[in-house]
């Protein structure tokens, strides 16, 4: 396993494209995390001005809410992470290096595992950025910091990891199926932004909530803010087990599909 990771890392660590993409993703995440309060505060202020009741002062960065808030935000950028995954998986087909890897003595399954490790590493990276950003922001914006407050709701980091990982595995499946960079990126975007929303609209809610992208999105529900509460909407502020299970099941199905397809496929 470690050997496979080492081989895979060798393929990216000297690639300029990889570092540029990762840096852009990192910058976007950090910008999102650190910049959002300004935006939300502005909105709150406007709402407060026009509202008869005064809004309580409330930082979205305070422990323990920061985990939920950032995890929710980070979810919007998972498409970018999928881009990195697709770019590097399809490049193995573009340059046919997957063939040479297999000829050199890597088994087909090992190759797939090495790419899975790549998805795990990127998802971990994303979750770590969330962890550090949340930690820094929480420290700066919480009045009375206690351990209990800090770790409370930190389960959202795990849920975030699962969300990003499941999406990454879905991208991986598309990469292995389509093999062409632009086509597979296009297919993912079309499914994510167009196809699933349409399918979802035609299905009853209790079924639609289990479509892959919806299930991933449901994992971390919209955070409750004072604003939301004011409008009388109350979102889930916990991770539901059944959404978690749905994501795990999807990940397992996607991974098994790749293994199954590549048992008999020509490279």
């Amino acid at each position, binding site marked *: 396993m470690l050997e496979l990771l080492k081989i895979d890392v060798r393929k990216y660590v000297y690639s300029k494209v990889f570092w540029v993409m990762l840096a852009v993703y990192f910058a976007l995440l950090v910008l999102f995390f650190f910049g959002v309060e300004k935006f939300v505060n502005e909105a709150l202020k406007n709402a407060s001005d026009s509202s008869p009741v005064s809004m309580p002062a409330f930082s979205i960065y305070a422990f323990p809410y920061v985990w939920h808030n950032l995890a929710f935000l980070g979810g919007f950028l998972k498409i970018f992470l999928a881009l990195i995954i697709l770019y590097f998986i399809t490049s193995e087909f573009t340059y046919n290096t997957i063939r040479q890897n297999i000829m050199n*003595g890597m088994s087909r399954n090992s190759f797939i595992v090495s790419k899975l490790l790549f998805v795990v590493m990127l998802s971990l990276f994303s979750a770590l950025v969330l962890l550090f950003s949340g930690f820094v922001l929480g420290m700066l914006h919480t009045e009375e910091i206690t351990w209990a407050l800090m770790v409370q709701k930190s389960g959202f980091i795990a849920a975030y990891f699962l969300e990003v990982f499941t999406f990454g595995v879905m991208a991986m499946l598309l990469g292995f199926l389509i093999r062409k960079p632009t086509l597979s990126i296009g297919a993912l975007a079309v499914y994510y932004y167009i196809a699933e929303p349409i399918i979802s609209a035609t299905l009853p809610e209790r079924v639609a909530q289990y479509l892959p992208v919806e299930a991933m999105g449901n994992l971390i529900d919209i955070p409750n803010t004072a604003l939301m509460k004011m409008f009388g909407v109350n979102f889930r502020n916990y991770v539901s087990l059944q959404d978690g299970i749905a994501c795990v099941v999807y990940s397992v199905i996607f991974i098994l599909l790749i293994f199954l397809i590549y048992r008999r496929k020509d*490279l």
Partner: protein
Amino acid sequence: MNNPVLEIQHLSKSYGHIRALSDFSLEIHKGDVVGILGPNGSGKTTILGILLDVLKPDAGGYLWFGKEPVSSSRKKIGALLEQPLFYPYLSAVKNLKIVADIKGVSYNSVDEVLETVGLTDRKNGKYKTYSLGMKQRLAVAATLIGNPEVLILDEPTNGLDPKSIALIRDLIADVASKGVTVLLASHLLDEVQKICSHVAILDKGVSLHAGRVEEVLNSALRVEIKAEDMEALYKIAVELAFVSECRKEKDGLVLLLKEDINTAEINKSFADRGIYLTYLSAGKRSLESYFLDLLKE
């Protein structure tokens, strides 16, 4: 006991409606240098692809080192299929280190094999900056990583200049002399004749002949004859007992003989039947003429 290094049993493979390979079988022993010959699209690469698990056969199977093939058996094989395949943004050294990692061998041989193919000067240059010939030489170098027991080379001299062709040829001869088994697919018949001990000839996915190179070359003598009256000459030639095959070619006849008969005997046979030869040329067949004859059949 001399177990075959490779046993190929009844391989068949189609791409859609096109039958790329039909019932191909072959046995290869340690130290053999086997040339697989055939025109473009005859199924050479398909066979090698199947043996390396990048293509899946529709039927049939193969054994490497007497066992059902597993990925670890490929670690003992150095392979170049169709074209060099490397990560373009990595240097030669970094690409070869990945090869060594996959094969689970040390990096010690990386510099050595680069030296062998004359790429030491450019070893830290990115692969994408290499010329076609350099890429091909790097691909040959990669096959030598980890001292393989078997080399599979598909058109290894593609895109190379004459000097590099000679280099690769010497290299193959050198590894073969050390007991490495070599499978070489090539159009260059002259090459195969020079280096190979065995040859398998393919056309449209069907094996036409497989055997030792000398057997092929000695299996029939080739004689070219001419006479004033070509029609009469042809009629007589096809009747002769020692002629296995007779074919009209340009302005003469080509005879393939069943046995080694001296030219005087041949000349006499025609004279006895009332026709005098104006031209008679005999010689052992080259692999090329054999190959072309076989494909015409």
